[in-house]
């Protein structure tokens, strides 16, 4: 089996040139609120660095913005909480399998984390159970995580039940992490909302939902489809009726609004991704939003 991480990296390379990748690094670095107090040295500002880290006096002397670096910055941990139920084996908005996008997201953020010397861990599962992978800072470990997600999110997996994974994280993870939630395009139910409130206090949370294939409207899926929830056929051809398409668009917007409402109330930044080509841009925007939200 070819390396999933190599594939992700090559996509990253294609999607963004060096400077943009550097910006992404800066955005990632500013995610964590905590700094040690021991000043190490200064380095040149790269876009994406937190403005509060700029050493204004030094910058004034040099004539270019400089960033304060601190020693012994604590090794951070990135925790991916991924839904690997069969919903993730369904088609995404862009026509790919949703888990392919999830793998890409984990690969990109995981690479950023490894570049910063941070470790990555994974909590995933479906309604049948939740599994956890320990935190390690190696590429081979990240590759293992990617393969785990890729191999478990299949059509024979159980129903998606992200709230179970969130509850698992709430009860098992004791330290402060950057928690990246890879969610299905689902509603956030009361159970999830409750555990999210708790998690938001402990962690930096980035909520990424993989957008589902459209069933009506201009981007609608052509051909016959079936619902992974109960494997019943979906006659998306019926949505050729403009009135039904309008109802559908309204219902989808309604769902999206409700999700945004819950996440915003917990001050969680979120992004929807429908295609692997969108991953880089959306992650950058998400990190940006997360930094500004503080």
């Amino acid at each position, binding site marked *: 089996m070819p390396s999933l991480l190599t594939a992700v990296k090559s996509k990253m390379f294609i999607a963004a040139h060096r400077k943009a990748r550097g910006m992404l690094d800066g955005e990632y670095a500013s995610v964590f609120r905590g700094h040690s107090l021991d000043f190490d040295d200064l380095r040149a500002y790269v876009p994406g660095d937190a403005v509060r880290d700029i050493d204004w006096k030094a910058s004034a002397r040099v004539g270019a913005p400089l960033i304060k670096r601190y020693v012994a910055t604590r090794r951070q941990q990135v925790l991916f909480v991924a839904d690997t139920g*069969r*919903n*993730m*084996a*369904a*088609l995404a908005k862009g026509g790919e399998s*949703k888990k392919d996008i999830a793998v890409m997201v984990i690969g990109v953020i995981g690479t950023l984390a490894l570049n910063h010397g941070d470790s990555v861990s994974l909590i995933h599962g479906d309604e049948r159970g939740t599994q956890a992978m320990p935190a390690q800072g190696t590429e081979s470990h990240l590759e293992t995580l990617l393969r785990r997600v890729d191999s478990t999110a299949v*059509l024979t997996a159980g129903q*998606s039940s992200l709230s179970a994974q969130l509850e698992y994280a709430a009860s098992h993870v004791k330290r402060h992490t950057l928690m990246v939630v890879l969610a*299905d*395009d*689902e509603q956030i139910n009361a159970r999830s909302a409750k555990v999210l409130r708790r998690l938001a206090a402990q962690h930096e949370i980035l909520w990424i939902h993989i957008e*589902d*294939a459209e*069933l*009506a409207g201009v981007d609608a*899926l052509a*051909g*016959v*489809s*079936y*619902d*992974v*929830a109960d494997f*019943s*056929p*979906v*006659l*998306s*051809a*019926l*949505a*050729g*009726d403009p*009135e*039904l398409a309008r*109802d*559908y668009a309204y*219902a*989808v917007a309604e*769902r999206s609004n409700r999700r945004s409402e819950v996440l915003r109330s917990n001050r969680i930044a979120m992004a929807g991704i429908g295609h692997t080509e969108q991953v880089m841009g959306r992650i950058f925007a998400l990190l940006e939003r997360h930094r500004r939200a503080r």
Partner: protein
Amino acid sequence: MIMVVLLVWRRTHKANTAVPVAHADRLTSLPRYQKALAAQKKWLAVAVASLLLMAGALLVAAARPVQETNHIPQTSNRDIILCLDVSGSMMDTDEEIVDNFSELVTEFKGERIALTIFDATAVQVFPLTDDYDFVAEQLKIAKNAMNIDSGNFDFFDGTYEVPGSSLIGDGLASCVSGFPQEAGVQRSRSVVFATDNMLAGHPLLTLPEAASLAKTGHIRVYSLNPNDYSTDSYPDQIATELKVASESTGGAYYPLKSDSAVKSIVKKVQDTEAAKLKGAPLKTVVDQPAVPLGLAMLGLLGLGAATLKVRP
């Protein structure tokens, strides 16, 4: 052929490979989707029903349904000659017969009727005709003349040209010769012969001779005799002769017990005639494609409508 079918099947099968989607309830829970789904199901059912109807109807049509009718040849192509003995003893019976036929003639369609009266000699009052207005008029005149209160005997002019009375054989022969010599169309011929066979005089032809004449012309003689005095133990000689003569022609003999019985006797004569006239029933077979083809058309229309309504 099989290859083509396989290819088409594979292609449709491939096109039908469904893709998995999550949260289809975004669409399927919408009331309008449910409604559209119900409509889809309904029209699919219509399509299937139409197809079945069309197939069934075409199958029936292909079997060529026919309507079979048994047709009995018309009884109206017959000729009747009323042959009435107008001797004094027969007047009441004659009046009754004429009255009955003037009623019957209103129901005739295509039958021809003639009236001949005889005593010593025979007189044809009117020849065979289907001009029923004329017949009714003539029968009315005859009825009036035969009424016992009538003092006018002009109607009977020409019946006493030779000595004698009730020259039965001559009378019947005259009546029988009243049928035209038609070669082509075969019409049934009957004579309603009212007489008491009370011969007085010397006829040119005896009754059996006249009867054989009728028989040669395929004419049936139905005799009505008001003065039959036979009992079970003692047969009336004169009446028996009339009976034998009538039956020899294929007709029948009816003794009249009273004049009011004429109606039933005339009816009996008509029924006998009708029964005799009944030929072998003809079977007519007519194709009936209208109903199955109409149903097939209906099925086609249903299928067309469903095809328009059902989304692929």
